[in-house]
C-alpha cells in the first residue's frame, strides 16, 4: 500500500467544493433572468471535474488523507458516470424546473453537494469517510425532494425519506461501531487484514454484518428495505426523481463494493452475506416486478422497476467473484443510462401545469413524434432486457456470473421474474405505438435537450450492438481495484 501526502487523488473533490462556494456566492448577486449563469456554471463545474478525474486517474490505487481516501480505477469510472448522469439530469430538468419556479440557486447547489457526497462515498476507504459522504448525499437529497415547498406530496416524501433514512443510517452506524469493536480499526483495508488474520470475534462480526447489510439494503432500495422508494419517486418533483434514480445508484454500488467486498471480503463472511443478498435479491425481483404491473403512475412504476433492477445488481455482487463484481458494475452503469433516459422522456412530455407522469400520457406518442417514441421504445426494451438493446447484455453478464458461481436456480428465478417484468415495459410500448394520442400538444424541447436525449437513446442501441468495450472497461477497472 502506498501513502502519498499530496492531495492529487482528491483534486476533483477540492475543485468541486471551491466551485460550489463560488456558485453559492455568485448566485446571491444574480436576479431571476440571469439564473442561466448558475446553470451553465454547474455544467462547467461538472465538466471540469470530469477533466480532472480523467487526468489524475492512475491504474493502481492511490491513497491520501492517511489512507482515508482512495482513488482507483473503479472510483474514477464511477465518478465519470456520476458527472455524466448528473449533467444529463441538469439538461433534462432545465425546462421543467423553470416552469415550476424551482430554477433557483438552491437546486444547483444542492445537486453539486450531492455530487460531492457521492464522490466521497465512491472514494472512501475508511468507515468515517464512507459515512460522511453518505450523509452529505442524503441530506442534500432530503432538501431537494422538498424543494417545492408548498407541495404536500413532495413534503411528505421528504419526511418519509428523512425518517427512514435516519433509521438506516442508525443501523449502519451501529454495525460500523461493532465492526470497530471487533477489529479495532475504522480503516477498511486494516479491517480486512485483521479479519483475514483471524482476529475479531466472529459472532460480533456477523452481527455487525447484519446491520450493515440492512443499511445497504435501504440505500440500494432492495426489498425488504424498499418502502420509501415508491413514495419518494412519486412525491418528488420529476427533475429530482430523475436525479435520485440515477447517479446515487452508482454511489450505492461503490458503497457495497467498499464495505462488503473490500472490507468484509473474508471467506466466512462472504458466505454469510451471500445468502443475505440472495434473499434480498429474490424478494426485490419478485416484489419489484409484480407490484410494478399494478401501477398506473409511471413514476411509481419506475420506482418498482428500480427495485427489481437493484435485485439484479445484487445478483451480480453475490456471485462473489471478480466477474460478478464487474457484471454488477456494468449493470449499474447501464441502468443509470436507461433510468436517466426514461425520466428524461417524462420531462420531455411535461410542461407547465402538466406532469406527464401517468402511463396514459404516453398514449399515441408514435403519432406525435416517431423519433422520441423510438427512443422510448429502445429504453423500454432495454429495461426489459430484450436484445439488441444494451440492457440485455447487462442482464446477460449478471446471469453469467450467477451461473458461474453455481447458482443456476437463481438464474432461472431471475429470468422468470424478468419475463413478468417485460409485461409492464411492453405496456408502455403498446400505449405509444398501438393507441391513438389523447393529447395533441406539440413536443418542443430545447435544442440541448433534443440532442442529449437523442444521444442517450442511441447510446442504448450502440452499446447494444457493440457492448464489448464498456464490458471490458468494467472488468479491467474491477480487476485493478481489487487486490
Amino acid at each position, binding site marked *: 500500500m502506498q501513502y502519498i501526502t499530496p492531495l492529487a487523488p482528491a483534486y476533483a473533490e477540492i475543485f468541486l467544493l471551491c466551485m460550489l462556494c463560488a456558485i453559492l456566492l455568485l448566485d446571491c448577486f444574480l436576479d431571476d433572468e440571469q439564473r442561466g449563469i448558475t446553470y451553465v456554471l454547474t455544467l462547467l463545474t461538472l465538466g471540469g471535474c470530469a477533466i480532472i478525474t480523467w487526468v489524475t486517474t492512475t491504474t493502481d490505487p492511490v491513497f491520501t488523507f492517511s489512507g482515508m481516501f482512495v482513488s482507483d480505477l473503479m472510483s474514477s469510472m464511477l465518478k465519470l458516470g456520476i458527472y455524466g448522469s448528473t449533467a444529463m439530469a441538469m439538461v433534462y430538468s432545465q425546462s421543467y424546473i423553470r416552469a415550476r419556479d424551482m430554477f433557483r440557486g438552491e437546486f444547483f447547489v444542492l445537486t453539486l453537494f450531492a455530487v460531492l457526497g457521492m464522490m466521497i462515498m465512491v472514494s472512501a476507504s475508511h468507515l468515517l469517510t464512507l459515512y460522511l459522504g453518505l450523509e452529505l448525499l442524503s441530506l442534500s437529497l432530503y432538501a431537494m425532494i422538498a424543494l417545492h415547498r408548498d407541495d404536500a406530496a413532495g413534503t411528505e416524501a421528504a419526511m418519509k425519506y428523512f425518517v427512514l433514512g435516519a433509521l438506516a443510517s442508525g443501523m449502519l452506524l451501529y454495525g460500523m461501531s461493532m465492526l470497530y469493536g471487533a477489529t479495532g480499526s475504522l480503516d477498511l483495508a486494516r479491517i480486512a487484514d485483521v479479519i483475514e488474520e483471524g482476529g475479531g470475534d466472529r459472532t460480533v462480526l456477523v452481527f455487525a454484518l447484519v446491520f450493515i447489510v440492512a443499511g445497504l439494503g435501504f440505500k440500494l432500495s432492495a426489498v425488504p428495505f424498499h418502502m420509501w422508494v415508491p413514495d419518494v419517486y412519486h412525491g418528488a418533483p420529476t427533475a429530482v426523481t430523475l436525479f435520485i434514480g440515477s447517479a446515487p445508484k452508482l454511489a450505492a454500488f461503490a458503497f457495497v463494493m467498499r464495505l462488503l467486498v473490500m472490507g468484509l471480503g473474508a471467506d466466512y463472511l462472504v458466505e454469510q452475506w451471500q445468502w443475505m443478498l440472495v434473499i434480498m435479491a429474490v424478494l426485490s425481483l419478485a416484489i419489484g416486478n409484480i407490484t410494478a404491473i399494478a401501477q398506473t403512475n409511471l413514476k411509481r412504476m419506475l420506482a418498482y422497476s428500480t427495485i427489481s433492477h437493484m435485485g439484479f445488481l445484487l445478483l451480480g455482487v453475490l456471485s462473489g467473484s471478480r466477474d460478478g463484481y464487474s457484471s454488477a458494475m456494468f449493470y449499474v452503469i447501464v441502468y443509470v443510462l436507461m433510468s436517466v433516459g426514461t425520466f428524461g422522456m417524462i420531462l420531455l412530455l411535461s410542461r407547465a401545469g402538466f406532469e406527464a407522469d401517468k402511463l396514459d400520457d404516453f398514449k399515441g406518442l408514435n403519432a406525435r413524434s416517431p423519433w422520441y417514441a423510438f427512443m422510448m421504445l429502445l429504453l423500454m426494451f432495454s429495461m426489459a432486457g*430484450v*436484445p439488441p438493446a444494451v440492457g440485455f447484455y447487462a442482464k446477460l453478464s449478471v446471469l453469467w456470473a450467477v451461473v458461474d458461481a453455481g447458482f*443456476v436456480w437463481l438464474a432461472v428465478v431471475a429470468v422468470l421474474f424478468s419475463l413478468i417484468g417485460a409485461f409492464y415495459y411492453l405496456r408502455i410500448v*403498446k400505449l405509444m*405505438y398501438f393507441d391513438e394520442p389523447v393529447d395533441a400538444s406539440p413536443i418542443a424541447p430545447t435544442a440541448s435537450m433534443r440532442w442529449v436525449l437523442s444521444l442517450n437513446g442511441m447510446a442504448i442501441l450502440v452499446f447494444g450492438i457493440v457492448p464489448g468495450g464498456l464490458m471490458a472497461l468494467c472488468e479491467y477497472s474491477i480487476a485493478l481495484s481489487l487486490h
Partner: protein
Amino acid sequence: MNISIPILSQIIWVPIFAGIAVLVVGDRRAQAARVISLIGALAGLVVALPLWTQFDRAASEFQFAELSPWIPSFHVNYHLGIDGMSLLLILLNCITTVLVVIAGWSVIQKRVSQYMAAFLMLSGLMNGVFCALDGLLFYVFFEATLIPMFIIIGVWGGPNRVYAAVKFFLYTLMGSLLSLVALIYLFTVSGGSFSLLDFYEVQLPLNVQVLIFAAFMLAFAVKVPMWPVHTWLPDAHVEAPTGGSVVLAAIMLKLGGYGFLRLSLPIVPDASHELAWFVIALSLVAVVYIGLVALVQADMKKLIAYSSISHMGFVTLGIFIFSAQGMEGAILQMISHGFISAAMFLCVGVMYDRMHTRMIADYGGVAHRMPVFAALFMLFAMANSGLPGTSGFVGEWLVILATMKVSFWYSALAATTLIFGAAYTLWMYKRVMFGAVANSHVEELTDLSSREFFVLGVLAVAVLAMGLYPAPLGEVLHESVNEILRLASPGRKLLIGM
C-alpha cells in the same frame, strides 16, 4: 473501393440499413418509402443469390464463414456460416420479403414507412438467425425479431391486436429466456466459448442434457409452435395484417424448426434420442388434433393458422425420426410450407381487402366474380392438402415414408393429415368460392390487380416447381443433413459417471 463486405454480412445488413433508410424518408413521403423498400428488398434478394450458385454441395462444413471478435471479454464472436438448410431458408426469407413489400404496396396507408421498415429489418434479423454460428449471436438475432413483429401486429393489426401482440411477445420471450440460461450454462462448461461448434463437442452427462434439452425445447416448441404451446399463433395470425401473417407463417415459425436442428440435436443428442418419443407424440397430436380443430373454424385466417400448426407437426415429426429421409422431408416441408402458407394468407388478404371480413359465412360464389383468383387459390388449396405435383406433397410424403420405417402407427396417424388437410382446406374453398353468389358484396368483387397477380403468380410457380422437380433442393440438403445426423448420433458426447 477495395473494402469488400462478406456476403453473409451483406444479406443481414443490407435489409436492415434499407429499413433505416426507409424510416429516415418518413411517413409523409409514402410513395418514396414504398419505392425505397422495394429496392431494399430486391437488393436483399440479389445479394443472397450468389449463395445459391457458389454453394459447394459436396461439402459438409459451414460455408461462407466469417469470424471476428465481438465481445472479447466474453469470448463472443461475430461468427457466421451457412449449410444447405440455412441456405434454403435464407432464400425463402429474401423472396418472401420482396413479396410482402409488394403485397403491402397499396393496402397499407397508415404509417407506410414504419410498416415497410419493420419488415425489412425483420428480414435482416431472421437472416442473422439462419447465419449465426455463435450461441449468443443466435440468441440476439432470435430475440430481436420479436420487436418488429410485435410492432407489426400491434400497429397494423385487427381489433384485438393488443392482446394478440402482447401474447405473442410474452409467449415467445418465456420460451427463449430459459434457453438463454441453458446457453450460459453451456458457456461455462465449454470452457468459455459461445461458439456452436464448441458446444457441439462438449461432453455432458445425460441428466444435464435433459435439462438443456427441456430449455431449448420450450424456446423452439413455442416458436414452431407445437401443441400445447401453440395458442398464441391463431391469435397472432388473426389479428396481424396480411404481411405480418405471411412472414410469421413463412419464416418465423421456421426459426423453431431450425433451432431444433441447429441447437437441440447436435448439442444434446442423447437427450434428444431419449425424449424423441415425447416430441413425436406432441407432433402427432398437432397433426391429428389440430387438423380436426381446423375443420371447425369459421374464420379463414384462423383455419389457415391451425393448418399451419398441423403442417409444422410434420416438421418436428420428421426431425425426431432421426433418419436422413425424415430430416430432409422436414426441411423441405418447412420450405414448402413457407410458400403455401404465404400464398394462403395472401389469398385471404386479397378477399379481406375487398370485403373486410374473414368469416367463411360471409362468402360464397366468389369464383363467379374472380375467376383468375379462384384458379390460383385452387392451386394453393390443393398444395395445402398435399396433392402430388405440388410442393406440399414432397415433404409430407418423405416424412410419412421415413416414419413408416420406424413405426406403422406413427405413420398411419401422420397420414391422416392427407384426409383432414384435404377436408378442411377444400371444404373452406368450396364454401367460399363455389355456389351461388352469396350477397351483394360478393357481387361487386373485382378480380386480381396486376400487383396481386404477380405476387400470387410467383408463389404459384414456386409451389409447382418445387413439387415437380425438388431434386436441386435435395442436392443442397444431403450433406448438411448427414452432418447434422452425425452430430446427433447417440453416445457421441455422453459423459458418464459425473
